[in-house]
């Protein structure tokens, strides 16, 4: 029986356990048919999937296991106005009509629960330990922070999930990333994530599911854990996960979709099973010492091109690997940087605090703490603070954070993916430089020709004040 939790034939990892519990059958193509507990859909990657179902004359198998949240195309200003971009509007309208036609719950733009789908799921208590969760979006790895197996899928797989509530999968390998020691003040999960990617590379996790362990990880808040798991995909891993603990359970308690009081104890007992056995074997293990981590920022066009924010841009000719050297040469040209220059020498045009990586309440607090009583540099063209959901926005406003942001010179916006990717009106212009709390510094990601530096919310706030990249510690009074 797939659901027994006391049979323990072999030491298993957290990933192994969730996998074993969700195997329904073998597929004729040689993969395993894995049951999916929760499916999130959004505006960009689902329209074609519904067409694939219609083409086969198939209904949605389990509408109640599906939640639709428009986020990518959403403008972050004046929500009550019609969306000007006809194509953006069409994608959102199609999501709405598909949801309606198939009895799928939708958090529409006028719903306070709307936001970036990876912020919304955990916030509602939908994301729970031991679950399998998918979405046509690579940052679905975020939900792994709750000890769920959560990963991004393509549109064909969105269609497969809609039609069968399962996916055909081949098991990934297990990787353990252990972080021990005390993280220095001012640093956050984002710095840990960037340090890990810098160490193992953007392809270092390819073929693996990462489990994050160690005292530094236990010490992270749920928000921090989500930031870390979110970035797993930037290391190439299919998913990232953290075993649930009391912090996880405390976060979930009382949320709308979490188990209610009557079912809570049974749920707790079940969730307790989801941790790696002591003797479990991982295919690869990496260890980091948190006390050695410093404030990080990217200099190039891949998240692996990352250095301490106070550091100097590397010289491409110092790379032994010819492919890495070529990549560095290209990146420097694109980024308008010179080998050996201080990262802090480059002047910034924009600052973006937001995205599914860093738009939760804790991120807003961290940025506001730096901004309080300060003003952004006059050289900054635009500084955006974009909460990850309507509820984060409300919470932040209740705490007065919006005033701190606007007093400092930031624009306080409606929730959405915003400047993380160039699909909605929030963009970085060609050759403009942006300090961004998002997850991708790819060429053109924030707009054609945009130059992105990834960093933590505190560093982004500090950068806005200084007008260039800077360690929070160096920011004067």
């Amino acid at each position, binding site marked *: 029986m797939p659901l027994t939790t006391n049979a323990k034939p072999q030491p298993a990892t957290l990933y192994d356990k969730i996998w074993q519990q969700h195997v329904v059958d073998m597929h004729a193509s040689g993969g395993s048919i894995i049951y999916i507990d929760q499916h999130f859909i959004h505006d960009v990657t689902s329209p074609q999937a519904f067409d694939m179902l219609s083409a086969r004359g198939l209904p949605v198998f389990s509408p109640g296991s599906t939640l639709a949240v428009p986020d990518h195309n959403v403008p972050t200003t004046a929500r009550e106005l019609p969306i000007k971009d006809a194509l953006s509007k069409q994608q959102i309208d199609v999501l709405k009509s598909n949801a309606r036609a198939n009895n799928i719950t939708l958090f529409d733009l006028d719903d306070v629960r709307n936001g970036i789908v990876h912020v919304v799921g955990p916030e509602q208590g939908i994301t729970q330990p031991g679950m399998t969760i998918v979405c046509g979006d690579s940052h679905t790895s975020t939900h792994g922070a709750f000890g769920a197996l959560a990963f991004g899928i393509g*549109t064909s797989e969105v269609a497969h999930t809609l039609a069968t509530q399962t996916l055909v999968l081949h098991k990934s390998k297990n990787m353990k990333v252990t972080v021990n020691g005390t993280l220095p003040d001012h640093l956050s999960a984002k710095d840990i994530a960037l340090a890990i990617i810098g160490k193992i590379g953007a392809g270092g996790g390819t073929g693996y599911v990462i489990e994050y362990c160690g005292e530094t990880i236990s010490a992270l808040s749920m928000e921090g854990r989500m930031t870390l798991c979110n970035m797993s995909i*930037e290391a190439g891993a299919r998913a990232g996960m953290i075993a649930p603990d009391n912090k996880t359970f405390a976060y979930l308690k009382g949320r709308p979709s979490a188990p209610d009081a009557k079912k809570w104890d049974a749920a707790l007992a079940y969730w307790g099973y989801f941790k790696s056995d002591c003797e479990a074997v991982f295919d690869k293990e990496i260890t980091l010492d948190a006390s050695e981590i410093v404030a990080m920022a990217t200099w190039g066009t891949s998240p692996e091109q990352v250095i301490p924010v106070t550091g100097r841009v590397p010289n491409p000719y110092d790379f032994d690997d010819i492919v890495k050297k070529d990549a560095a040469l290209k990146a420097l040209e694109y980024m308008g940087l010179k080998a050996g220059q201080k990262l802090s020498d480059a002047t910034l045009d924009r600052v973006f605090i937001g995205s599914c990586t860093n738009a939760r309440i804790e991120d807003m607090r961290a940025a506001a703490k730096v901004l309080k009583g300060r003003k952004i540099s006059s050289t900054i063209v635009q500084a955006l603070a974009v909460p990850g959901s309507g509820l984060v926005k409300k919470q932040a406003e209740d705490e007065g954070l919006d005033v701190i942001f606007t007093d400092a010179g930031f624009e306080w916006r409606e929730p959405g993916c915003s400047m993380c990717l160039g699909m909605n009106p929030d963009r970085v212009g060609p050759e403009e430089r942006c300090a961004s709390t998002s997850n991708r510094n790819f060429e053109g990601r924030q707009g054609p020709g945009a130059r992105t530096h990834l960093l933590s919310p505190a560093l982004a706030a500090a950068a806005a004040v200084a007008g260039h990249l800077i360690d929070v510690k160096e920011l004067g009074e």
Partner: protein
Amino acid sequence: MEPFKNVSSIATPFQQANVDTDLIVPSRYLKTIKTTGIGEGLLYTLRFHEDGSPIKSSVFHQPLYANSAILLTGPNFGCGSSREHAVWALREAGYKVLIGTSFADIFASNCYKNGILTVTLPEDLVNELMCAAVAGLEMAVNLEKQEITTDEGRVISFDIPLARKDYLLQGLDEISLTLQSVDNIKAYQEERLQHLPWQSFD
């Protein structure tokens, strides 16, 4: 899905590391509700200047590779966003086989679902094929035999799980195959909800 047919063509040499799916298709080409019409956006910034004029030096504008159905790639190709649009754009441009040292997980899966073969080879062999492509040699990819043969007669064999190979060769439909297990899926779902009543849905 269309069954995979053997391919004989010149290969486009594209040796760049960590080519992400934002680079393969910029997000402005994602504002479609169809799976076609995306080819125009394929590797746009590598093919066109900001003003829309072609970058003449781009390998994708070389007449030699105009009808190429094979793309030789650098490591970690297809990383980043899960957008299947990247694969649809490659398909529209006529690519049927991608050969490289490593492909990002979601991207490789998206290729497979669209009948595009990804071949993973050790670096020295990929480099050898890059050289052949630069020299203008054609190569033939035979999936049944799991072999790549260059015009010079060099034969390189590759691995692929048997089931995956059958799936591609027969052009099977994954959803229909899964629905053969529909009773098991329903039984599983029911049992799961009984054990985990808090995961209920109305």
